[in-house]
């Protein structure tokens, strides 16, 4: 009887040690993501052909996509943050995509990872906003054109809305990946459970199997969309740091 829990796939195991530094499966997959990303970008851009090959068009597509996202939301000024948004997008995208391959580990299914990424984004926003605009940055919370009586209330709401940004950014990515992988595992588990049941129920096994295939396709879409949403929200928040009272 196969009775593996659907959340076993998220367990972090210590694989080996480097000195006194434990290396977990999560760390190994993060290193793998970096290796794959570096491979695509370095080998993709090394030939610089006029007619791009596969790797080159992949890297050029990725660049164009993120560049147009950043330009569209944060303007030309936002392009100074392009390296950061691009790295975040590629890291999240590759982590989501690698996670779909069976027997792999999904780095972004752990909230500590996504929260670390979101904290990086929001700290960049705060620090850059203060560096560039000084106290004028806080005009983000005090919008003009509001009746004086309402200002304290609006400021409270705006502050809570600002604090909730990293929370919603990290929870959305983490919850999407977690829920998707649990659902996939459950439907996969149904197939084996029905097959080994040894009764007429075994004939029902193809139904969850078809669902598993459809869900895998959906997960592929979600993997890309969540990376895209992460990138676009990063540039929206960065836009607030560049033009706080706009």
């Amino acid at each position: 009887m196969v009775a593996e829990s659907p959340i076993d796939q998220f367990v972090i195991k210590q694989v080996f040690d480097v000195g006194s530094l434990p290396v977990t499966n999560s760390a190994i997959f993060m290193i793998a993501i970096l290796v794959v990303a570096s491979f695509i970008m370095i080998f993709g851009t090394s030939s610089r052909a006029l007619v791009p090959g596969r790797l080159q068009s992949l890297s050029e597509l990725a660049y164009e996509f993120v560049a147009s996202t950043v330009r569209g939301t944060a303007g030309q000024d936002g392009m100074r943050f392009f390296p950061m948004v691009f790295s975040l997008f590629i890291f999240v995208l590759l982590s989501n995509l690698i996670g779909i391959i069976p027997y792999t580990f999904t780095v972004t299914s752990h909230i500590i990872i996504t929260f670390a990424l979101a904290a990086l984004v929001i700290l960049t926003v705060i620090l850059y906003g203060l560096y560039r605009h000084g106290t004028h940055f806080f005009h983000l919370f005090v919008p003009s054109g509001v009746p004086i009586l309402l200002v304290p209330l609006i400021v409270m709401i705006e502050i809570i809305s600002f604090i909730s940004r990293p929370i919603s950014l990290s929870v959305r990515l983490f919850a999407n990946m977690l829920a998707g992988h649990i659902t996939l595992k459950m439907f996969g588990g149904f197939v084996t459970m029905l097959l080994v049941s040894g009764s007429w129920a075994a004939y029902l096994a193809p139904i969850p199997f078809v669902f598993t295939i459809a869900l895998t396709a959906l997960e592929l879409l979600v993997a890309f969309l969540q990376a895209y949403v992460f990138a676009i929200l990063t540039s929206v928040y960065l836009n607030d740091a560049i033009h706080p009272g706009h």
Partner: protein
Amino acid sequence: MKEVDHENGGDHALQERLAKLGGAIEKKRAGSFEEDRRLAEAASVVGETGKAMALGFRALSELIAGVAVGGFIGWQIDRWSGLSPIFLLVFLMLGFAAGFWNVVKLGSGKSSTRSMYSNMNGRSG
């Protein structure tokens, strides 16, 4: 496919074959265009569903995060001040308002706050 008559009327036969081939190619091309169009349509439907789904998740997570952050701040202030449920209740309301406000901003397609307020006051942002 058929043997060509080289002796007489070869030119005529050739013309006929060319016309036939042209027609066949035309037909095939129209068919493949139709197929391409249908594929593109299906892809755009999938893309639109995905975009709508992403938007829905965004709205949902903004709401939840607003309430969660508001609730947490209220709970923490309660612990410090010892006025147990008051701040929790107030900040839960504020958090809900903040979450809702984020969803409104999301729906209006404006990321900046100021343009929203000036719009409400009837001024052009």
